């Protein structure tokens, strides 16, 4: 089976009609469902957070069968994710889309869990540390999008589980966890 950077592509990716928006409602629903799952799975495995609709994205075309998704189709599939709260448009013209393979709430829970398991309660970490530090290596947090991370941290702050403080530059933005 075809692979994309270690990601195992589903069989429908090689079936040409899945690259054309289907006119019949039931068929379309099935098609959208398959694409939604594929986009989320792929982004998760490759740690992709932002998809640009007008840029090249490996899932949007399949050179093996010479098919690619029209702009309309891309927007339909991503809009379906947005409707489910698994993605957000980053601009009004729908050119960039933030993919939340974990919802913000789930990210916040994940961070809290990470903090507890590694004994970081009451200690300070920089945002940079979380994104690319040695502590988070091998967890879902490694390589997390800054925007997503900040929103999750802010959610934790609201619940009184963390305190974000700013340094002089964005680089030393830090967070103190309290379990």
């Amino acid at each position, binding site marked *: 089976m075809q692979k994309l950077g270690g990601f195992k592509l589903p069989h429908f990716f090689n*079936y040409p009609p899945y690259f*054309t928006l289907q006119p019949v409602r*039931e*068929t379309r629903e099935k098609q959208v469902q398959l694409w939604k799952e594929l986009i989320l799975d792929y982004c998760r495995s490759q740690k992709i957070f932002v998809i640009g609709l007008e840029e090249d994205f490996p899932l949007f075309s399949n050179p093996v069968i010479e098919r690619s998704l029209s702009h309309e189709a891309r927007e339909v599939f991503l809009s379906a994710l947005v409707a489910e709260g698994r993605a957000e448009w980053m601009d009004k013209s729908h050119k960039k889309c933030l993919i939340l393979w974990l919802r913000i709430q789930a990210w916040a829970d994940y961070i809290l869990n990470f903090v507890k398991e590694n004994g970081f309660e009451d200690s300070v970490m920089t945002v940079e540390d979380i994104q690319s530090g040695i502590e988070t290596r091998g967890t879902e947090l490694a390589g997390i999008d800054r925007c997503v991370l900040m929103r999750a941290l802010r959610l934790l702050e609201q619940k009184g589980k963390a305190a974000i403080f700013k340094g002089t530059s964005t680089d030393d933005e830090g967070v103190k966890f309290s379990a």
Partner: protein
Amino acid sequence: MRRRPGISGLQSAAAARDQYRLVGENVAKIRTDLMKEQLATFRSQLEEFARKHKNDIRKNPTFRTQFHEMCAKVGVDPLASNKGFWAELLGIGDFYYELGVQIVEICLATRSHNGGLINLQELCSLLCQRRKTAREAVSEDDCLRAISKLKVLGSGFEVITVGKKKLVRSVPTELNKDHNEILEVAQAQGYVTVEEIEKTHSWPSGRAIDALETLLEEGLAMIDDGHRDGKRRYWFPCVAPISAALGAEGLRSSS
């Protein structure tokens, strides 16, 4: 001079008739007895055979098919009743009912993908995947037998032959001759174009489009506008080999 009929003449004629009838009855009785005896022998032979090859019948699909053929030729249907001697001996009835249930499940699970029409071959391979844990192998013949048992339920399970392939229909959609012919053309590549259909069948343009629209509505076809030549292709998941793998995937995620 002619003799007139007398009492004794009539009596002897009646006696002769009685004699004939008696002899006739005897002969008939002997024949039936013989037949009964032969049938009994045959039955016991068949039982003995079935008993002896019980494991083969259960486990070897080819052998099972041949056994069924043999039974059909002598007018015995091992599936006729689940309570009969055959079921007790072979457990064959249960086997086919089990298959039937699994076939229904597969048809339902793949319906959203193929619109309720599935290739027999594909169905069979999905069935085998599903039964991986069960020891007995399943042949297409077994599938057909199980489906024929499903008919009793009146649920509209039917096997249709399109070209060389057999398709199993699990939706009440009636396919007319035009639809069947389109499916037949589609078997070659998995898809058809309006042009192709018009050319192979020399239909007027409306006819092909009408039939294709219906197939689309029924969820049996999918359109593909992405080819370089710009001609719309109609794909049929029920005949395309790729759907075998896709169906399996759908099944796994739904179970």
